């Protein structure tokens, strides 16, 4: 994300320069003038190639003295927010390839830097100023070095430099800079293992860089999963259908998908569909593949869940006169959903991790970002950061599954929260429609294991019968 816009800015800058050059060519040039050859700044981004505002960097400025000109001093001026305070400047004057016998006295002020030469610099001399410790404006942006110089005719304007692209000094950059400067971090990084897998600076950078990938992972699995659940339910019902053909279709679907690697399914979809001239956006295709793959596993989970409901439940429903669909919707599925929640959650965790395989076909998910950052930095730390991103989601879910399983085991034994015993009055018989309905809703069924125990246990009668 950041990278692309930085490129964009660079390209924009180049375009500006080209325009500026074109303009200079067109404009009638002065009789003579000190030409600004270049003004560059050294990248100060850890592991990157950008110049960050607000952090010390080295500014290199070069100019060539024009024919017949004698330059006695040069003043560089930076935009507001910059600072030359506390800089050290190396002044080099070159005549061809050899150093000219010319000294420069440097007087840094906040926004400007004055170099006064020991004797006027004559035509053809190359003046190079290397200023260490310059701070560019911390908000970033294109920095143009301006200034003035003094020649035999008095003070002249210096030609503007090409803009130097800088990026903003975010808290992240500040943190990185402080990590760079920290001796403990340095000692830590000097250990080959820690430095290779847990380099703090890269960890910080990776966290920032991987976020879009992480979000895409979450997005893919969160969109895919509801579809997977619906598909899974359909195939589960098909699998226990009385119709042999319907059953066969479901069995083939489930077994083929469960019997082949997801990696292969991804390849077939991502390379096969385009060959058939079906072009679907990579991310959408990722969602589709994950949904289809998960649906096969969910179908098995649901089927087992439905079959685990004792036949007495069907008989009780039938004896009330419920038809088949009614029984399924009101009696069997709500119970099934409760039973399969732990398994479905585990399967969700698997699907979430499986999105990593989509990196092999160029979906810009978490692993893809980690891979890119690792190949740029030559360090394994981004993979560790990716691992942390996976764990942020999976660990709470794993914990949640454990809690739900415990709660369900307890409630099956008859434990768990109990509602308050209502006063034994006939008033209740009049009915209280406002009261929480006894209607089974899917939402209620789904949320039941997660609902906190709000009901009062105190004052409870045991299970002993009231005689």
């Amino acid at each position, binding site marked *: 994300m950041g990278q692309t816009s930085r490129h964009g800015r660079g390209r924009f800058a180049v375009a500006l320069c080209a325009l500026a050059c074109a303009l200079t060519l067109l404009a009638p040039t002065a009789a003579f003038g000190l030409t600004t050859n270049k003004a560059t700044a050294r990248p100060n981004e850890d592991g990157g190639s950008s110049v960050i505002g607000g952090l010390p960097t080295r500014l290199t400025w070069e100019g060539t003295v024009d024919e017949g000109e004698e330059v006695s001093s040069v003043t560089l001026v930076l935009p507001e927010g910059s600072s030359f305070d506390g800089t050290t400047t190396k002044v080099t004057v070159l005549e061809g390839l050899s150093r000219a016998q010319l000294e420069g006295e440097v007087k840094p002020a906040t926004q400007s830097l004055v170099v006064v030469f020991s004797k006027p610099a004559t035509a053809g001399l190359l003046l190079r100023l290397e200023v260490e410790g310059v701070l560019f404006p911390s908000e970033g942006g294109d920095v143009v070095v301006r200034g003035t110089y003094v020649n035999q005719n008095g003070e002249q304007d210096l030609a503007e430099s090409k803009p130097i692209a800088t990026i903003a000094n975010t808290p992240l950059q500040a943190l990185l800079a402080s990590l760079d400067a920290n001796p403990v971090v340095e000692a830590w990084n000097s250990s080959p293992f820690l430095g290779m897998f847990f380099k703090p600076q890269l960890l910080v950078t990776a966290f920032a860089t991987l976020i879009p990938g992480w979000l895409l992972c979450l997005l893919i699995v969160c969109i895919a999963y509801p579809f997977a659940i619906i598909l899974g339910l359909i195939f589960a019902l098909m699998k226990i259908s009385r119709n042999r053909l319907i059953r066969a279709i479901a069995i083939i679907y489930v077994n083929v998908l469960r019997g082949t690697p997801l990696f292969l399914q991804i390849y077939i979809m991502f390379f096969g569909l385009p060959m058939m001239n079906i072009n679907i956006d990579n991310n959408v295709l990722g969602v589709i593949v994950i949904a289809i793959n998960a649906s096969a596993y969910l179908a098995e989970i649901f089927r087992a869940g439905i079959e685990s409901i004792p036949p007495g439940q069907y008989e009780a429903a039938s004896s009330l*006169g419920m038809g088949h669909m009614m029984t399924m919707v009101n009696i069997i599925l709500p119970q099934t959903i409760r039973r399969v929640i732990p398994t479905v959650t585990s399967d969700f965790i698997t699907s979430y991790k499986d999105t990593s395989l989509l990196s092999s076909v160029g979906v810009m998910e978490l692993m893809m970002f980690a891979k890119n950052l690792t190949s740029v930095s030559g360090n394994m730390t981004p993979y560790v950061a990716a691992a942390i991103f996976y764990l942020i989601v999976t660990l709470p879910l794993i914990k949640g599954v454990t809690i739900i399983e415990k709660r369900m085991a307890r409630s099956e034994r008859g434990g768990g929260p109990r509602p308050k015993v209502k006063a034994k009055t006939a008033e209740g018989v009049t009915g209280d429609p406002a009261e929480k309905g006894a209607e089974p809703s899917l939402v209620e069924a789904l949320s039941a294991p997660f609902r906190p125990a709000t009901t009062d246990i105190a004052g409870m009668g045991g299970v002993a019968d009231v005689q």
Partner: protein
Amino acid sequence: MFNKANGSRGFGTEARHVPPALDATEAALQAHERDKTLTKHHFEPEEHPCVRIEHLMKTFDGETRVLTDVNLTVWPGEVVCVLGPSGSGKSTMLRCINLLETPTAGHILIEDHEITGPLPIKEVNKLRQNLGMVFQSFNLFPHLTAKGNVMIGQTKVLKKSKEEAEVEALKQLEAVGLLDRADFKPAQLSGGQQQRVAIARAVAMHPDILLFDEPTSALDPELVRGVLDVMRDLAENGGMTMIVVTHEMGFAREVADRVVFMEGGVVVEQGKPDDVFDHPQNERTAQFLGSIG
């Protein structure tokens, strides 16, 4: 499509060498004649039986013959207790009556309406609304509260409004003494309480006939009373027609209008409770009653 309980309707390939169901009036007269000494039921003039079982046969897997030839007539408001050793086919007969099992041959008529033979599933569901069933293992819906269990049939099958169903549910729960447990889940109730909720669930549908399959067999002895009291109340004050498979001899003797003894898939003896208990005519009945004590 995959409802285990519904089974496939209609008859198997087994030959049906049983006489056809009798004409309703004729049958009522004959049954009246036969039953008048066998039951404490007070017959109304020109009363028709509400359940007529004629030559009922049921085999499983085409070989194990569980019911050989069951004949039984149940009158409106009558309480019939069915006794018999384990495996004699009591449950199977009961389950045939509300078509949880498909009879292999013979006839079952509910209110003179033949239910054996191929019936559309809508008819079957309609029929079952008139036949409440209480199971040995309660079979409450564990995801619903006691009240929810009693309401669901009313709202979904009878299409009553939630408010109406709730009023009815609370009324029935009060009748079984569980108004204070209305918001409890089945897992939070004792077996006896669960069975009483199951009875309330069946009664709330206002069926014509209630079928009980050993409703107290799964209960601890101290919980049996509460359930039997509820059933006694239904029989004596509710005037409900009941067919009760039970091993509770005391209940049968006190509450039943008629006791039916089954063995090997046939009704071997039936009669007024005192007659059967005190002077069993059949040797097997005597043996069985002796062993029960």
